[in-house]
């Protein structure tokens, strides 16, 4: 009885009695949800265009952030006196590096593996993960680095809003993250709805063969989506790096995008966003209100269980294309 009370009533009593903490929890959930959504977006873009379940997305986040920080340090060593200038120069160079990476991956990995079964492509992205871990550590060293948040003029500090008999603290960096992520999502959506390349991408997603037959270059589309995924990775890396630091442990965070992905549906951009928010908020609420009942620290699997519950009712995810099977 006591247990039932603790599970089904007590959390809601707590929510009502300390509404400021509820708002704070929802906000934290929203922020992590947005970041999860951003990583998931990278997955979805690639999956739609090339059918590759890109496991390397996580390491791309780390690699992009490391490259940014590493290049910044190098530029400072080479005599760029202004931190800000070095930061933005490094940012531009990192974008170039991500483009080079997309190009190389298309050339050396995707093109030779075209038309292979899904699992082979999936494994190839594991190979890329290993390669990028080795390369990143070799070039920039394995120790964690500080994100150059100040030089990039990312805001610091927090806004404490008094409300509901308490206070809710909004970190400026989180507000910025949410804003930038929303702009990116909107921008990408616009890009893929309105531009020529965007239309071509949607054609490719529908059918590779049909797209090829009307003269769309698959190679070009692949470079574009992998580049877009690289940019998304860079933004995620900056935001998450600013919250703690840039290290290889960040890679596991990207795994959180997987439940988001299956919850939203592998092929749906809105699915990635809604899924991200559901997972982010669900996870924080679960950890905050129900976690202490079983010893806290349940975030590592809660997201998967939430996604699994949704999947049992909709096996293709919330927004995924309905799976039609024929004999």
């Amino acid at each position, binding site marked *: 009885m006591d247990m039932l009370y603790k599970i089904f009533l007590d959390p809601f009593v707590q929510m009502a009695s300390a509404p400021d903490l509820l708002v704070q929890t929802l906000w934290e959930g929203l922020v992590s949800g947005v970041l999860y959504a951003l990583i998931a977006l990278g997955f979805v873009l690639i999956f739609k265009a090339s059918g590759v379940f890109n496991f390397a997305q996580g390491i791309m986040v780390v690699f992009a952030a490391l490259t940014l920080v590493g290049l910044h340090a190098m530029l400072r060593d080479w005599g760029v006196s202004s931190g800000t200038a070095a930061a933005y120069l490094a940012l531009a160079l990192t974008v170039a590096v991500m483009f080079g990476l997309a190009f190389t991956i298309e050339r050396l990995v995707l093109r030779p593996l075209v038309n*292979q079964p899904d699992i*082979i492509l999936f494994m190839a992205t594991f190979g890329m993960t290993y390669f990028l871990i080795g390369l990143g*550590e070799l070039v920039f060293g394995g120790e964690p680095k500080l994100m150059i948040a100040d030089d990039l003029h990312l805001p610091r500090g927090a806004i404490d809003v008094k409300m509901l008999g308490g206070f809710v603290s909004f970190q400026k960096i989180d507000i910025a993250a949410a804003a930038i992520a929303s702009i990116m999502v909107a921008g990408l959506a616009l890009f893929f709805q309105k531009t020529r390349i965007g239309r071509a991408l949607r054609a490719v997603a529908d059918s590779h063969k049909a797209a090829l037959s009307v003269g769309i270059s698959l190679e070009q589309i692949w470079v574009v989506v992998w580049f877009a995924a690289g940019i998304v990775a860079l933004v995620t890396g900056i935001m998450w790096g600013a919250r703690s630091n840039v290290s290889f442990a960040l890679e596991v965070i990207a795994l959180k995008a997987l439940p988001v992905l299956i919850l939203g549906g592998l092929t749906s951009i809105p699915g990635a966003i809604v899924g991200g928010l559901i997972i982010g908020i669900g996870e924080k609420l679960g950890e905050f209100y129900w976690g202490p009942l079983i010893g806290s620290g349940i975030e590592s699997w809660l997201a*998967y269980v939430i996604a699994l519950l949704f999947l049992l009712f909709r096996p293709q995810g919330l927004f995924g294309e309905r*799976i039609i099977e024929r*004999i």
Partner: protein
Amino acid sequence: MFYRETGQFKTTYQADQAVFPIRQDRIGIAIILLLAFAGVPLLASEFAISSFFIPVLVFSLAAIGLNLLTGYTGLLSLGTGAFMGVGAYGGYKLATWFPDVNILIPILASGFVSAAVGVVFGLPSLRIKGFYLAVATLAAQFFLSWCFVRIPWLVNYNISGAIEVPTRTLFGIPITGPNATATTRYLVTLSIVVLMTWLASNLVRGRIGRTWMAVRDMDLAAELIGIRLYRTKLLSFAVSSYFCGVAGAMMVFLWFGSSEADTFSINQSFFILFMVVIGGLGSLVGSFFGAIFILGTPIVLRALPGLFGLSIPAATVEHLTFMVLGALIIFFLIVEPHGLARLWQIGKQKLRVWPFPY
């Protein structure tokens, strides 16, 4: 020339369906077994046995387990590490409950614990397919990992939170614990792996294996010809988890000698999936090739600078190892997506028609 089946007539169905229908294959496997049972213990160094041969055998068994599920039944799983963990902790509990029972029995029985858990986490497979299922099995991975840390009962309330393997003997010779020599542990591992591989090879070419493959090729069609999907899929999860569980128990009892929850992390699952795919999906011999490749490559790469007399810092070697391993994986996938097992087959075919090219 010497690999030709001319003149070997089969007069019974039994002979025709033998595991090794060709005489040369039978001789070959006998030689390999002889090398494994006698050659390795006599010739290989202790380092090679404990850091290469035992791990290869343990991981081969786990890879066979995953291969039964992914390669034969077509269900992608990323929870192998956790199922190995269930076997390890299950074996530990059994071994402490029945300290007087021969240690081999807990090791082999641990698989049943993990089979039961496997069936539970296999339930979503009835409704979810493909990558969706793969991510769903991650739920098993993370949840079970959490259990290993959080349930002190599993480790008999050890304060260190880890399990330690006590010394146990077979015919008066210690086979687990610090006093067991690498050679003894190797021979025990080898015996179990040979036995279970034989079991698996008979399983996959029998009725059960054929239903699995029918489900893999198209589950809807399989259902239409009268295969009960839920039974087939769950059986596959159970058998696969059994193999993984025994591998996990062997890993702790015959290799590590102790274990933390961290051992059975998600990286372990990925590692085994590598072996299965590189070795060849749907091939038992491929599982061995995959394990040898994935475990052997880093050892070779780490030894290389020393052989050439270069002194490179250990960390740099590690970074290069990662890069080369990653590149090699991609390279192998490109040149032979069907895995090393396919190369083996091609090699055999070439031998068969030699000296003609086709």
